[in-house]
């Protein structure tokens, strides 16, 4: 367990040693801030809605996370493969699964820091009205879960290649695909999409959180997808043995 923390600490320090972390965090804050105050998809913006709610923020945030988090995770394994540091890391007495969990935990540190910076939005809302605190907590829990899932998918694509740009593009495609493209494809394929299929998309699973509803099934869903991505990453790292 200690090794996971040691790796996570190093990864977090290394993430904030790179400009990508600061650029990503800034993009997230500016983009979600703009969408929060001025609306998304032509919907009501914060001022028109005349409601003390964070719904526009929670609707917008997963979009932006799907773009910035693969930029943070792209280096996690691809850079180690490219520079050769992976050889020293995996020949230390540590299992491949601990390496992957440590790296995921380190990148979650970035997610937590970035989300913590957005607490200014609920602070603003609270100054002008009485928002539903439960909804805010639910929304943030949803963002942590979906963000962690995006990180795990990005980490997985980072294990597939030596090239960080390739890892980023693949991670971005996967995150955007699972966030929204699956939903769009299902809608194109079916006039009345079966609920079972709709439940496969991140958007459907996240919708309840955005409303402030914490459903254990949604939690299990995101945790399960994260676990699958972690297992796949470990499998790829281990596969160096068979080549």
């Amino acid at each position, binding site marked *: 367990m200690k090794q996971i923390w*040691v*790796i996570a600490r190093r990864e977090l320090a290394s993430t904030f040693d790179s400009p990508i972390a600061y650029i990503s965090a800034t993009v997230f804050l500016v983009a979600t801030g703009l969408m929060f105050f001025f609306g998304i998809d032509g919907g009501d913006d914060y001022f028109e809605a005349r409601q003390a709610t964070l719904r526009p923020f929670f609707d917008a945030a997963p979009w932006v996370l799907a773009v910035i988090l693969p930029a943070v995770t792209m280096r996690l394994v691809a850079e180690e493969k490219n*520079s*050769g540091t992976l050889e020293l890391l995996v*020949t*230390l*007495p540590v299992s491949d699964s601990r390496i992957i969990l440590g790296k995921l935990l380190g990148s979650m540190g970035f997610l937590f820091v970035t989300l913590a910076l957005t607490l200014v939005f609920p602070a603003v809302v609270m100054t002008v009205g009485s928002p539903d605190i439960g909804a805010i907590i639910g929304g943030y829990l949803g963002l942590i879960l979906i963000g962690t899932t995006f990180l795990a998918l990005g980490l997985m694509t980072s294990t597939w290649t030596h090239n960080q740009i390739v890892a980023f593009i693949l991670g971005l495609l996967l995150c955007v695909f699972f966030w929204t493209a699956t939903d769009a494809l299902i809608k194109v394929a079916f006039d009345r999409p079966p609920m079972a299929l709709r439940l496969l998309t991140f958007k459907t699973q996240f919708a309840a959180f955005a409303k402030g509803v914490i459903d254990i099934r949604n939690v299990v869903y995101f945790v399960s997808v994260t676990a699958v991505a972690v297992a796949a990453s470990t499998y790829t790292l281990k596969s*160096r043995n068979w*080549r």
Partner: protein
Amino acid sequence: MADAVIQIRNLVKEYDTITALNGVSFDVKQGEILGLLGPNGAGKSTTMKILTSFISATSGQVTVDGLDLFANPIETRARIGYLPESTALYPDMVVWDYLVYCGEMRGFTRAQCHERIRSLAGRVGLIEKLKEPIHTLSKGYKQRVGLAQALLHNPKIVILDEPTSGLDPNQIVEIRQLIKELGKDHTVILSTHILPEVRQTCDRIVIIHKGEKVADGTIEQLEGKLHGTHELVVGVGWDGDDRGEPIRQELATLPGVLKVTHSHGASDPIRHQVFEIDAKQDMRAAIFAWANDRGHTLVELRRRSLDLETIFQRITSEA
């Protein structure tokens, strides 16, 4: 071998179309410095990568300190310190933090890491660089950081892949000295292209060529194997003008001598003739007695040794 720390049996590593190792077997004894030699692509690094669990083998058995390597990869890694050929380190880290990171990964507390780094830094010549970021270090210092992380946990076995590549001559001498010192407390496997390094540091060499072991022994043993006969160089004081032909004939009649050839004449300042002798056995004592009986001045008497380059070339070209 009873005191073997590493036992390798029939090690095979096949890639898609290439067989990198084809049934390699050898042992490494406790406290031995073993030189692993071979041309580029011979399978040296593959052997080292398997020993350190970076890659697995297609078949074969490896025992490290009594443990099956493939069944206990984590436990065997804990007993090994490894310096890979690339010596890739995290450039964004400070040397001290990097070594603490490696120590913590090996299960030490921060306090234990600090103590170990302090005691090791002098040994590997890193004291004045401990607070510097790794990306600012020269190749030689990076190599020392790599060595420090390999020795931090005082491992039973140290595996060094090309430890002096890219270093300047002074650094090479220092690292070689360090390797020799390591041999007092550790079992060392060293891969290198630099043959004089092997002669200076290694107790024994294993030569791998085209994925197979083609030689195993001390340098002297390999020399003997290549010679087949005992070769001597004899210098005898001689003033005549006939290139020492009478002496050559006398030497040729000695029991055990197979062939005598005149090499050259010299005067430095004693005028003498130099002969090369092939014999069934070591003739040095007999030749000394012969010269003494005949009243010849023996100017030179030595076994002719092959340099390691010649041994290496002959073995790898024969294989």
